C-alpha cells in the first residue's frame, strides 16, 4: 500500500497528475472546439449529472435502496444555493488578474486559441459559489437525514422507492408555491437572474471530489457495511451491522451529492423552473445508473456522458418537431439494456483507481492450524479408497 509518499484523499501524485491533465485537455483542446450550447449540454451538464448519478448509485447500486427521490434533493440543492447567490452575487467580486500566455503557433493546431489566461478568476464569486454549493448540499443532506431515518425505519427497498418518489413530487409542488414564502423563487414562473458562475472547472472539480469521496468510503469498513446491507440484510444484522444506520448514511451521502449537483446546475443555466424538477425527470439518473451498471462507478461515469451525447443529444440531432421522439427511444434503450446486459454496459470492469485495493496474500503460520488442517482440509482421497 506504500506506493508513494505523497497522498491526498488516498490518491497518489500519479492520480492527481492525470486529473490535471484530463482537465487541461478538456479545457484547452475540447471545449474551444465546441459551441456554447454543446459545451454546456455535452461537457458541463454531464459532469453535474454524473455527480447525482454517483450519489444515486451509492444508494441503489451499493446499498440496494431504491430511491427515486434524488431529483427532489437535486431541486433542494439548486434552489437553496440560488436563493443564497441571488442577492449576494453582485456584492462579491474580487477579480484576480492571472497571467496571459501566448500559445506558440505550433501548438495552435492542438489548442485553437491565440492566447490562454492562467489563474484568471474572480475570487469573490468563486468563494460565493463554494459556499452556495456547500449550503445547498448540506441542506439536502439534512433533509435526507430526517426523511431517510423516518422512512427507512419502516419501509423496505421497493416501498422506499415509492416514498422517495412521493418526496420528489412534494418538493416540486412546494417549489411551485414557494413564492408565497420566498418571493425570489417566483414560484411556477421560474427563477431568473441567478449569477452564472458554474464553469467547467467547478463542474469537473466537484465531479472528481464526488468520485474520490465515494470511492474512499466504498473501500473502507463503512463502505463494506453499506454493501453488506445490499448483499444480505439479515446476515449483515447477524454480523453486528446496524443496517438502519448504514442505510441512512448511504442515503445522506447520496443526497449530499444530489445537492451539490443541484447547486452547480442552478449556476450553470442561471434559470430554475419547478417544471424541470418534475418526477418524470427523476428517472433520468435511474436510467443512467442502470445503463452503466448498478454498483459500478466507471460505468456510471461513462454512461452519463453517453446519455448526454446520444439520448439528450437527440435534441440537437433530431429534426425540428421530432424532439418528443426521445421518449420513444428512451424506454426502448432501457428495455434493451435490461434484456441484453442486465449487469450494465461494463459489467464488473472498473478503472484502475476505482478498483478495490488488493491485499497481498499472507502466509500466516498459525501454530494450531495443523489440527484443523488434518480435520477439514486434509486430503480425503486415501480415506475414500479405504472405505470403498
Amino acid at each position: 500500500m506504500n506506493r508513494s509518499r505523497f497522498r491526498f484523499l488516498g490518491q497518489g501524485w500519479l492520480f492527481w497528475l492525470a486529473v490535471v491533465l484530463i482537465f487541461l485537455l478538456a479545457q484547452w483542446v475540447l471545449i474551444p472546439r465546441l459551441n456554447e450550447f454543446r459545451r454546456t449540454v455535452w461537457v458541463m451538464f454531464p459532469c453535474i449529472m454524473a455527480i447525482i448519478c454517483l450519489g444515486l448509485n451509492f444508494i441503489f447500486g451499493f446499498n440496494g435502496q431504491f430511491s427515486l427521490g434524488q431529483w427532489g434533493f437535486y431541486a433542494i440543492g439548486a434552489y437553496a444555493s440560488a436563493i443564497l447567490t441571488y442577492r449576494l452575487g453582485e456584492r462579491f467580486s474580487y477579480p484576480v488578474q492571472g497571467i496571459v500566455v501566448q500559445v506558440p503557433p505550433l501548438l495552435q493546431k492542438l489548442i485553437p486559441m491565440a492566447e490562454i489566461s492562467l489563474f484568471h478568476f474572480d475570487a469573490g464569486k468563486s468563494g460565493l459559489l463554494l459556499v452556495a454549493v456547500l449550503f445547498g448540499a448540506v441542506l439536502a443532506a439534512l433533509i435526507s437525514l430526517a426523511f431517510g431515518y423516518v422512512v427507512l425505519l419502516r419501509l423496505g427497498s421497493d416501498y422506499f422507492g415509492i416514498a422517495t418518489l412521493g418526496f420528489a413530487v412534494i418538493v416540486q409542488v412546494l417549489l411551485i408555491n414557494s413564492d408565497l414564502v420566498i418571493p425570489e423563487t417566483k414560484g411556477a414562473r421560474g427563477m431568473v437572474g441567478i449569477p452564472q458562475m458554474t464553469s467547467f472547472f467547478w463542474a469537473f472539480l466537484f465531479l472528481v471530489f464526488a468520485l474520490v469521496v465515494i470511492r474512499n468510503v466504498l473501500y473502507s469498513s463503512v463502505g463494506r457495511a453499506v454493501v453488506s446491507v445490499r448483499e444480505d440484510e439479515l446476515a449483515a444484522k447477524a454480523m453486528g451491522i446496524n443496517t438502519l444506520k448504514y442505510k441512512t448514511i448511504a442515503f445522506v451521502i447520496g443526497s449530499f451529492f444530489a445537492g451539490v449537483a443541484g447547486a452547480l446546475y442552478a449556476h450553470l443555466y442561471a434559470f430554475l423552473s419547478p417544471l424541470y424538477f418534475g418526477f418524470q425527470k427523476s428517472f433520468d439518473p435511474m436510467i443512467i445508473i442502470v445503463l452503466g451498471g448498478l454498483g459500478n462507478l466507471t460505468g456510471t461515469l461513462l454512461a452519463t456522458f453517453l446519455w448526454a451525447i446520444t439520448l439528450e443529444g437527440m435534441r440537437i440531432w433530431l429534426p425540428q418537431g421530432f424532439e418528443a421522439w426521445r421518449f420513444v427511444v428512451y424506454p426502448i434503450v432501457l428495455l434493451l439494456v435490461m434484456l441484453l446486459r442486465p449487469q450494465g454496459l461494463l459489467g464488473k470492469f472498473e478503472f484502475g483507481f476505482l478498483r478495490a485495493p488488493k491485499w497481498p496474500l499472507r502466509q500466516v503460520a498459525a501454530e494450531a492450524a495443523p489440527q484443523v488442517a488434518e480435520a477439514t482440509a486434509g486430503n480425503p482421497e486415501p480415506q475414500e479408497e479405504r472405505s470403498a
Partner: protein
Amino acid sequence: MSATVERPVVLNTEGLSKNFGGRVTASGYEGGLWAVRDFDVTVREGELVGLIGPNGAGKTTVFNMISGLISVTSGEVEFYGKKLVGRPAHAITQAGIGRTFQNIRLFPQLSVLDNVRIAYHSRAGYGLRDAIWQGTRFARKERELTERAQELLALFHLQDRQDEIGSNLPYGEQRRLEIARALAGEPKLLLLDEPAAGMNPREVHTLMDMIHFIRDKFKLTIVLIEHQMRVVMGICEWITVMDFGQVIARGTADEISNDPKVIEAYLGRQGRRV
C-alpha cells in the same frame, strides 16, 4: 474439566415463546401458530450444547429469537445476566453472540476477505471521516483489521482464497467461511445452525473435530442445532430435544437416546404399523 466449581451461566432463557399469526387479546395470544412455546435452557461457560429435534420443531426459531432477528412473543433471554429481548440484532451480536445460518448466508458477491472483514466492522476503529480522508490512522487500522481477518482465514485454510467471490467457493469452504465470519465478531457464545447440513458422514466427522478445536482456541460456548441425532450424540455434553415447539427431553447423550419420548418423536410410536 470436572464440574466441581460452578461455571458462570452464559445463556439462560425462560419461557421463550414465539407465535406466528395470532391475534393479541386481553388474555394473551389467540389463534396463530406457536412455533416455540416455553423454551427454557441454561448454558454454562465452555459447554457444548446440542439442540435437536425433527424438522419443523422450532429450533431455528429459537436461534432467531436469541440473536434478535425475529421478535420474541413472550419470555426472557439472558446473556451473562443481561436481558436481550427487545435489543436490536446488531447490538446482540456486538454483545458477543455469533451465529451461522442453516442455509448458508454469505455476502454472495463479495470476496472471501470482505466477508470476514464486514464482521470486524464494529471494531474497525475508524469512522466515516477517516475513511474519506484516508489518512495514516485509516491505513493503520485497515491494515490491522485485514491482517486479523487473514489470520482467521488461515486458521480455516482459506487464506489463498481471499480474493475469490464468496458464492464461488465449494460448499464445504462456504461452511467454513461462514463459521470464520461468525468468529470474526469475537463472540463468547456461538450459535451454529445445522453446520452439518448437506455433509457426508466423513465430512461431519471432520466438522466435529473443528468445532472442538474452535471451542478450545477461542474459549467459546457453543449451542448447536442438528436434526440428525447421531451427529450431536458424539460431541455435545448436554442435549435439549424439541418437538412441535416444546422441549420434550433434556440430558446427556445417553439419557436422551433412551428416552421414549425422543424415540417417539423421531421414529413414531412403536407398534402402530409394522
